Structure formats: C-alpha cells, structure tokens
C-alpha cells in the first residue's frame, strides 16, 4: 500500500481539484477545509515517504503496473521526496494564509476555481519531481504552466492579464523547446524513460552528436525560461508582482525552483557525463547564474513596488540554485539544493508579509512604508527576519545555504564565486535593510484611516514561516542529511 502513496497523492490532488468547481453554493463553505485537508494529507504523505526512502532507499513505481519503457514510471528517491516535502509544506502554509487574503484580492465566484488551479499546480509540480520519463515530465510541465498562468490572471485586472499573457507566451515557448528536445531524444534512442535513455545515449553520442547537443540546449533553454534564469527572466517581475499575494508566494517560492530540480535530474541522470567535457554546459549555467545573482540584485535595488522588488530578488536567488548546479561539486550542489527549501521559506514569507501590508494598509510603494513597523510590529518583524536571512546573517537559514555554496566553491578552488556570493549578500543588505529601518525608525506618519486589522489566520502562517527561517538556521541537520543522500545521484 505504502508504495502506492506517491501516485495516490498526485491523484488525490487532481481529483480534489476537479471536485472544487462542482461545489455549489451550499457546499462552497466546505471548499476551504477540503482543500486544506487534502494539502495536509499530501504533506503527511511526503513526510512518510521521506521516512520510507530513508529506511529502504529509493524505489520505482510503475503506474498501472505497466513496466517501463512503455509504462509511466515514478522514481521516488531522496531528491524527489525532498522536493515533494518542500512543495507540499509551503503550499499548505500559503493556503492557510490565502484563505482570508484571497477574498479581498479576487471575486468570490472564482474562489473555487482558485482552489482548482492551486491544487492542479501542486499536483503537477509533485509530478515533475517524481516522474522518471520525459513524456510525463512534459505533460506535467504543461499543466503547471497553465495553472500557474491561471493563478496570476484570476485577479482579472489589466496588469494581471498582461503579465500572465507575457508569462504564457514565454512559458509556452519554453515548453515548445522542451517538447522538441523530448522528440529529439526519442528519435535518437527510441525511449522516453530516463533510465533507458541514459543507457542508450553514450552509444548514440558518436552517431548523433549534434542532435544530442541540440536536445540538451533545448532542454536548458526551455527550463531556463521557466525558472527565470537570467537573461530569460523578463516575464517574472510582472507575473510575480501583479499576482495575488498567495500566488506570488507559491510562484516565487516554489514554481521556479521545480524546473531547476527537473533540469538537475536531466543533466545528471539522463545526459552522459562525457557530453559535459565536450560542451561546457555547466560553466555556461554557472556564468548565467553569476549574472542572475548580480543583475537580480541590482534591478531589485531600483524598484519602488515592494512586490516587484521581491520578484527581482527571486531572480537573484534562483541564480544561487543554478550556481550550486553549475559548480557541480558535492558541497556546492548541497548548497544549491538546500537553498531551494531555504529560499522557498523566506521568499514565500516575504511575499505573504508584503501581502499583509497591502491588505492592512493598502501600501505597495516602498517609500510609503515608513513607520509601518510601529503599526504592524509582528509582520515587519517577520519581514526583518526574512531580510536578515536574505543577507545571510548566521542563525537564519540563508546562512546555511550560503555557507555550503561558498564552501563548495572553495572546495573546487574557485574563490571567485565566494566573492560573488558575498557581493550579492551585500547588495541584498542594501535594498532589504532600508525597508526594515524605515519601517521601524525615522519619521512617524499619522495612522491612515483605512488601516485594517490583521486577521490572525493571515498572520499565523507568516509567523510560522519566520519561525522556520530561524529554526532551520540553527537546526539544518535533518534537511542536510536527506540532501546528502540526494546528491549521490
């Protein structure tokens, strides 16, 4: 039974998402508890799967009992369960927040559609994390693209529609690249399953070198667009800043990272290592990540809208994940992967805190945030913790990822990247800390009349995430232990 759990959790999410729109007026009140219980169940399953994988190792699951290469195969290893845990935990916490917040951001009629899209998005992301064949990967990729677009455009104002259209066009372009890549791989090897492809590719390399290279570059471009790796990030600031706050939290915290995890899988499990000696793919990724880290921070510095600033900051932070992949050493990879979780925690917390400010005070402009900390001490306190974590102050989880990335870079004898990490931390400090300072100190402004009380149901998730930032700063042991096994790919 327990071996069926991965597929059951995906199926449960899909099923729940289909049921949502069917809930009619009377049953609509049940939508939220239902969604939360489904998310809670998936989170529990992910924890159980971690235990399972820790105790008995990675295992494959053949959907419907059809063996590969024909059937759909899920491969549940340490990386997969790690991603599943990250996805489901953050989704659960964000949904608790969204339950209240969404009513003021979107119209009540479309609430059940929001739940549908949200659950679909989570299902597709878990699918991407677990799948072991290219076709399923592509299917889930498409689902995630569409549903991600949906949770942006659901707000139905001009800005959102425009942003989601931009996102849709670029993202579909990315999907097209991935599809072409899949087709090429299939043409060369005749398989779609990762393991079978990986077996065939080393022999095929002599015969079809260009096709394989083409496929590789198509995958890289496709996934880079989707994970907003510089310079293919242009859609992100609009999409993430205009979306409703819970959507922004999930999009910035999780969605862009799942594609990074997917490309990591492809690079290290599917493509043969000899290929990287011919083309410096990893170095290309590495230097793109350096550019992303610097450019994201610099763009973020000049933003006036708080959510836009957070969105640009995400571009820099995804750079760290790719830096871990590009450095390709054990410790650096560990740093990049642990940053997936750490950044998910802090960025979703920051987006939710920004959402709270927008909810309570109606302020989006950074300059107007003066004195907000006096009115909303807990929210801005959490924001401050997130800011410290972005800078990498020890005792926050941001420090743990930077520590591993920097140590990994040193292991490989490339102190240049340590300098980049430090420089980017400094830049983070330069644009995050003034917000915190201005919020608490300096000129006091008169409380605005439209100030609303912060509902506990919105505040608690922010505080939970903030507590997580501190907790995993002091106690990253379990996560790191899990990831140490995950990187033995």
């Amino acid at each position, binding site marked *: 039974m327990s071996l069926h759990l991965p597929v059951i959790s995906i199926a449960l999410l899909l099923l729940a998402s289909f049921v949502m729109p069917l809930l009619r007026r009377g049953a609509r009140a049940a939508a939220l508890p239902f969604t939360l219980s489904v998310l809670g169940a998936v989170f529990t399953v992910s924890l159980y799967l971690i235990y399972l994988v820790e105790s008995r190792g990675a295992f494959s699951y053949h959907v419907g009992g059809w063996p590969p290469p024909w059937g759909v195969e899920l491969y549940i290893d340490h990386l997969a369960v790690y991603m599943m845990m990250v996805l489901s935990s953050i989704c659960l916490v964000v949904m608790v927040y969204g339950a209240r917040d969404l009513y003021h951001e979107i119209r009540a009629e479309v609430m059940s559609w929001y739940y549908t899209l949200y659950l679909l998005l989570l299902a597709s992301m878990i699918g991407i994390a677990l799948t072991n064949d290219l076709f399923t990967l592509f299917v889930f990729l498409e689902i995630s693209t569409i549903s991600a677009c949906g949770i942006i455009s659901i707000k139905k104002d001009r800005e959102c529609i425009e942003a989601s259209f931009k996102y849709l066009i670029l993202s579909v372009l990315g999907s097209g690249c991935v599809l072409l890549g899949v087709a090429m791989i299939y043409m060369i090897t005749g398989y779609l399953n990762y393991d079978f492809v990986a077996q065939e590719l080393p022999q095929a390399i002599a015969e079809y070198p260009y096709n394989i290279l083409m496929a590789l570059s198509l995958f890289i471009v496709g996934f880079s667009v989707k994970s907003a790796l510089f310079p293919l990030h242009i859609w992100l600031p609009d999409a993430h800043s205009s979306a409703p706050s819970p959507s922004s939290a999930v999009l910035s915290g999780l969605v862009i990272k799942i594609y990074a995890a997917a490309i990591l899988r492809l690079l290290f499990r599917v493509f043969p290592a000899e290929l990287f000696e011919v083309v410096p793919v990893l170095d290309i990724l590495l230097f793109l990540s350096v550019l992303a880290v610097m450019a994201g921070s610099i763009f973020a510095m000049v933003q006036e809208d708080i959510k836009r600033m957070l969105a640009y900051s995400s571009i820099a932070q995804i750079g760290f994940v790719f830096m871990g992949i590009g450095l390709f050493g054990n410790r650096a990879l560990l740093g990049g992967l642990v940053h997936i979780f750490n950044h998910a925690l802090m960025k979703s917390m920051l987006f939710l805190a920004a959402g709270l400010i927008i909810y309570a005070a109606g302020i989006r402009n950074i300059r107007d945030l003066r004195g907000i900390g006096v009115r909303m001490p807990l929210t801005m306190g959490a924001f401050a913790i997130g800011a*410290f974590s972005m*800078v*990498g*102050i*020890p*005792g926050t989880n941001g420090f*743990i990822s*930077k*520590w591993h990335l*920097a*140590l990994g870079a*040193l*292991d490989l004898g490339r*102190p240049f990247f*340590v*300098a980049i990490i*430090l420089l980017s*931390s*400094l830049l983070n*400090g*330069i644009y995050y*800390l*003034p917000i915190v*300072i201005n919020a608490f*100190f*300096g000129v006091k402004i008169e409380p605005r009349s439209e100030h609303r009380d912060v509902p506990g149901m919105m505040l608690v998730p922010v505080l939970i995430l903030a507590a997580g930032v501190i907790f995993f700063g*002091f*106690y*990253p*042991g379990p996560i*790191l232990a899990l990831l140490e096994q995950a990187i033995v790919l």
Partner: protein
Amino acid sequence: MEAVFYNFMPIWTVMFPIFMSMVIFIISRRSEKLRDGLSVATAVVTFFSVAAMYPYLAAGNIIDYTIFDILPGLGVSVRVDILSFSLAIISSFVWMLVAIYSIDYMSHEHGGDRYYPIFIFTLGSCLGIFMAGDFFTLFIFFELMSLISYVLVIHEETREALRAGYKYLIMTIIGGLALFFAIILTFELAGTVSLSQGTLITAAGTLPFLAFLSFLVGFGMKAGMFPLHVWLPDAHPVAPSPASALLSGIMLKTGAYGMLRVLFTVFNIPLVKETGWDMIMLVLAVITILLGSAVALTQEDLKRRLAYSSVGQMGYIILGMALLNETALVGDVFHIFSHALMKSTLFLAAGAIIWKTGLRNINDLQGIGKKMPVTMGAFTIAALAMIGIPPLNGFLSKWTLALGALEAGAPLYVVVLLISSLLNGLYYLPIIIAAFFGGEEEEEGGHHGEGIPFNIQEAAHRMVIPVAILGLACIVFGLMPNNFAFELSLRTASFLINAGMP
C-alpha cells in the same frame, strides 16, 4: 561537578541578559521604575556572574564546552580563557555603571522602552563574542551585537542619526561578510574554526593570506581601523551618551579581541612574522593613531572629538598586538582596560554636560568646570590619562607599549606614541583649561582677582557617581602598578604568546 558548574556559567552569563531583555521589554509597558531597576539589576548580576568565574580561571583552567553542532565541525560552543575573562569583566563592569547612569540620562529622552531591552541585549551578545568557543559562535554574536546596536546608534532618530546609522549598518554588513569569507576560508583550510584546537592555519599561501586580510577587514571595521573607520566618527557621537560610552569604550574592543584571536589562534607568531603580515597591521595602526589624533584636533563637537580620539586609541591597541612580543601584549591588553575606563568616563562626562546644559560645542564649555566640578574632574583625570601623564592608567599602558616597541627593536613606534600623546594633549588640554579657568570675562563683575566661586550645578547623583567611579578607577589602576587589571594583562599576554594554550 565543579567543571559542570563552570561549563554552565558562560551560557548563563550570556543568556541571562538576553532573556532579561525580553522581560524588560514586557515590563516596560507596566512600569518605568521597574524597567530601570531591572536593567540595573541585570547588569549587576551579569557582572558578578562574570566575576564568579575568576577563581576557576585563576587556577589555570579553561572553560570549554560545546553546546550543540549545527553542521559537522561547526557548532555553538563556549570557551572562557583568561583573555575572554579580561574583556568580559571590563565590559560587564562598565556596562553596570552605564546602566546606573542611564536611568537619569534616559528619563529626558524618548523611547526608553526600546532603549533598555536593546541595551541589555547588547550586553548579552557582547559577552557572547568574548565567551564564544569557536569563530562561528563568535560570528553569530558579533552580527547580533552589531545589528542590535544599530538601534542604539539611531536612538535619537534625527536625520543626522539615521544617516550615520545607515553608514554604520552598511559598513557592518561589509565587515560581517568579510568575516564570513574569512571564517569559511579558515574552515576550508583547517576543517574547524574552534578556538581550542591550537593554531588553525600553519602554512602561508594565497588562501591563508586572503583569510588574514578578510579577518582584518571584518574585525578592523569594528575596531575602527584606518581606512575602515569612516563610520565611527559619525555613529558614536549621534548615539545617546551612555550608548556612545559603550560603543566607544567596549564595543570597539570586540574588534580588537577578534584580531587578537586571529593573530594568536588562527595563525601563529612565526607565520605572521615570516610572511610579513604584521607589517600591514603596523602600518595601518600607525596611520590610524596619527589620523585619529590629528582629525580629533579639528573637531568642534565634544563627542565627535572623543570619537576621533577613539580611532587613535584603537590604533595603539592594533599596534600593540602587531608588535608580537610579550611586553607589547601586556601593554596592549592593559590599554584595552585603560581605554575602556577612560573613554567611558569621557563620554559619560560629556553626556552629563549635555544633559545638564545642552552644550555640545567645545567653545561653549568655558567655565563649565566650576558648575560641574566632579564631572569635569573625572573628565580631566581621564583626559590626562589619555595624554599619558603619570601616574594614571594611560601612562602605564603607553609605557608598557613603548617598552614593547623597543623590545621589538622599533623605536620608531615609540616616536609615534609620543607624537600622538602630544596631539592628545593638544586637543584635550584646551577643553580642561577652558572648563576650569575660562569664562572669567563674562562673570568678571564683582569677583575681580579672587577667582570665580564655585557655582555647583551638577547633574543627577546617579549620573555623577558612575562618572566619578570610572574616573577614580583611572587613577587607581595607574597608581598601583600591581593591580588586578595589570595582573590580568600579564597573564593574558603570556597565555597569548603560548599560542592560546595555557
């Protein structure tokens, strides 16, 4: 059993103030009296907790205890040896007096509810730096203290204070990142950052040099070393005076403490001498001394002048450690004591003047000594000690430093010390002269030729007494060369010369 008790002591001394800061924060909504009382009580208890470790340490023991590991080879640990103790005892002593001083000083200021918790929290994190058992723990408390003391710097919330605070914050972050780089390099090279493993880096090379430079930047930033001192003259004067006293008197010393650890635990004397890295520190120290003293001359604002003077005095401390011999180290550690006492006296005295009269400009201080004789008396003692006039403590530390310089075969540094003393005299003496002998013109009227009678308008008792105690301490520690502080300096120096091993 004894060891278990003493392992627990440093954790208690660090965590007690941090915990109490929360209590004070909650209490402050109820009663201001209780808040003030609790703050003083916390500082006093902390001081005695630190002092209670002395018998155990004096017996030659070292408290060394790992609390838990965050990552393999990287944990939170405490370690108290004679160097840690020296710095912790002087810090908690000055903190205690400043806490008493704050009660009346802060009653005129806004935001006391914020000030006291931060004040006590900073005490805890400052002691945490001194009692950290490895560089990682040290780094946590270092960042904690630096970031939290930002609130003390900008307490007035004027435009000027905020600007100075921003500069302070950015420089702190740069320093923190440099420190992060240094620690990570040390970890990479040595596999550990513990302070109790003996010398961590034994071979020269590019990476060790980078580590050394980054440590120098990280700790030098805090210590106000040239050219990283730029934040200091802005940040120290804008803070409320008790906070200035702590920032200048104590918190600068955390940088010096870190540098001592770097020189004698991360690296060792032969390595630093062989590679010539000590020359970098010596040159920077000389520039720091001369620049600090020279710029202080040009300052009109009393607290700004004191802040620049701190830059110069930190130069002595960096010079003392970079000379790398035992005599210089004795002078060095003793100067940490002396400067903590002198500079807190001066800042608290300046604070008392500002509190009572609102005067900050040096030119307005004519005749202030007749109104506030005790305050200005203490100021005079401390200023004379700064110049290095015997028998004050400043003389003793300069004397020993000069002896150390001669022992190192570098009489040049003695000349630097003398020039700086001269400059100190040039900028401190006019204040004293004007305070006691100036101001006759205006009040000349009826008292011609008899001198002006004292017209005593001292600040509140709870402000004057701490100032007086600190001023007296400057005399006591200078008059008796075999005092407690000097004793500690001797032992610390021999401890450091043995590469941080007892």
